[in-house]
């Protein structure tokens, strides 16, 4: 317990009256990061659970790892490398993006927490990893920094921090880059970590000539160009299994996003709008990533069970609708999730109202 002792020895310095008491939030963040807090609620009812927010967030990070590790490999694979070379090349390319995202985001989080005298929120542990995974590998680092700062300040802190945000901060960062620096996140060059290689993504193929451009197995396993962490549906499903097994993400949301996307894809196929099979949409682009890691965000998705089904179905359907109908946006998942983030509270409101009406009806005969 050497570490515990060091932390305990440092504690008075940062507590009230100590020399560095103005850094109390920062110290608290590191202490609770290292050890589960031993304080309990002293009055009223409370639930005993060894799991807290930090441990929850760590599980999400673990669930992201398969997709991230595959992303490292795919970064190298896409420029013609194989085996360990490809993985190492990808690691060196992607690591700076992750570092920038964490450093910028955490600096702002710590700054705000310190200024407000709050505890540092845990949410950025996940957001900081999500942001690099939905960026193209060729993105300039300063854009990652600007987008992260925008997402944390305007997506989260102005609303009051983690738990109060209307929109998913990681997707907001991507949306910012998408609308502010469009050439850096679309087209045929940015998906490759090497200037000499270029090629359309599967989604661009689908939008222009109605083919996948790759075999469906390649698309499912993820050997296709795309954002760093989004290409491999297989690796994302491993993450989904972890999230569902630990009970952290909602299976209702995940299932209904896939169902909504599939239904919409099949509808377009049956009506002859597109010539390719509808389920292709589920394995290309960021669909699986959005369904598993973005739509399930506990803060911004619907809170009621019925609401989760409704929001999930609409997210999936909307994503495919944007992909097919709007040629300017080959990828619709980001906009679909953000749009449904905005509508989720409304859906929840009507679900709750409907429930109240239903139960009121039950009351009437008793009169």
């Amino acid at each position: 317990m050497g570490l515990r002792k060091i932390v305990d020895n440092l504690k008075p310095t940062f507590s009230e009256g100590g020399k560095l008491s103005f850094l109390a939030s920062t110290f608290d963040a590191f202490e609770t990061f290292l050890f589960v807090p031993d304080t309990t609620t002293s009055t009223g009812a409370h639930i005993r659970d060894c799991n807290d927010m930090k441990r929850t967030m760590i599980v999400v990070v673990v669930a992201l790892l398969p997709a991230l590790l595959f992303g490292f490999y795919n970064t190298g694979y896409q420029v013609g490398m194989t085996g360990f070379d490809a993985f190492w090349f990808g690691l060196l390319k992607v690591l700076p993006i992750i570092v920038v995202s964490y450093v910028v985001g955490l600096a702002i989080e710590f700054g705000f927490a310190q200024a407000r005298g709050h505890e540092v929120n845990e949410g950025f542990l996940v957001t900081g990893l999500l942001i690099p995974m939905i960026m193209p590998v060729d993105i300039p680092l300063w854009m990652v920094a600007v987008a992260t700062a925008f997402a944390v300040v305007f997506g989260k802190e102005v609303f009051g921090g983690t738990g109060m945000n209307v929109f998913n901060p990681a997707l907001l960062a991507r949306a910012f880059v998408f609308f502010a620096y469009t050439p850096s996140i679309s087209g045929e060059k940015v998906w490759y970590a090497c200037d000499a290689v270029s090629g359309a993504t599967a989604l661009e193929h689908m939008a222009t000539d109605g083919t996948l451009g790759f075999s469906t197995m390649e698309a499912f396993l993820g050997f296709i160009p795309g954002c760093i962490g989004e290409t491999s549906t297989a690796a994302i499903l491993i993450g989904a299994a972890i999230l569902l097994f630990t009970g952290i993400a909602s299976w209702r949301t995940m299932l209904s996003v896939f169902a909504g996307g599939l239904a919409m894809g099949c509808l377009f196929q049956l009506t002859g709008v597109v010539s390719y099979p509808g389920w292709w949409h589920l394995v290309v682009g960021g669909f699986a990533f959005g369904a598993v890691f973005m739509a399930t965000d506990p803060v911004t998705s619907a809170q009621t069970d019925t609401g989760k089904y409704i929001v999930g179905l609409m997210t999936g359907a909307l994503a495919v609708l944007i992909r097919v109908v709007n040629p300017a946006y080959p990828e619709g998942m980001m906009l679909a999730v953000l749009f449904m983030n905005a509508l989720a509270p409304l859906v929840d409101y009507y679900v709750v109202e409907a429930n109240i009406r239903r139960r009121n009806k039950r009351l009437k005969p008793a009169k």
Partner: protein
Amino acid sequence: MSSKNFKYLAGPFSANNPVIVQILGICSALAVTVQLKPAIVMALSVTVVTAFSNLVMSLLRGGVPARIRIIVQLVVIAALVILVDQVLKAYVYEVSKQLSVYVGLIITNCIVMGRIEAFALANKPWPALLDGIGNGLGYGLILVIVAFFRELLGSGTLLGWRVIPESWYMAEGGFYANCGLMLFPPMALIIVGCIIWVHRSRNKDLQEK
């Protein structure tokens, strides 16, 4: 100028700013601030209109029955806006074309009628004129701040002059790119929000409970 009159003139710059405190005239603040030059012209036009409509309505305040005052105000404002529009077309035609309908829409700018109703109808001409100038310039101040950031970050220029060198841009082998979001009105709203944020945190008495 007495200190009271000076307050009418200077108040709208900060503590009683029409855009960030009274939240009036937001629409045009979003529409005409992509570049600095149209924003400045717009600011001056609105200042002229608020100043003289305030003055005229203050002079007429004894003679206009309360029931038809709105229609009289509209006639005065519309006449002034048409004058401003013709002057802009005569002397700064390019900017006038850029501003397009927004010059005409000064008629609907909430600040103009708001100041007549709230101030000019109950005050003497001289304070009313000062109040009009103050509010016009207070509105213009916000417009210029927003346009400064939008033009600098969105186009890399200021008043049409290149500030960020060409060689910095990615197309020329550099590292920089303009923020395309700055050219969209939503970003103007976010900038106005930031100005309000800074302003409120410096003026504690304006903070809502």
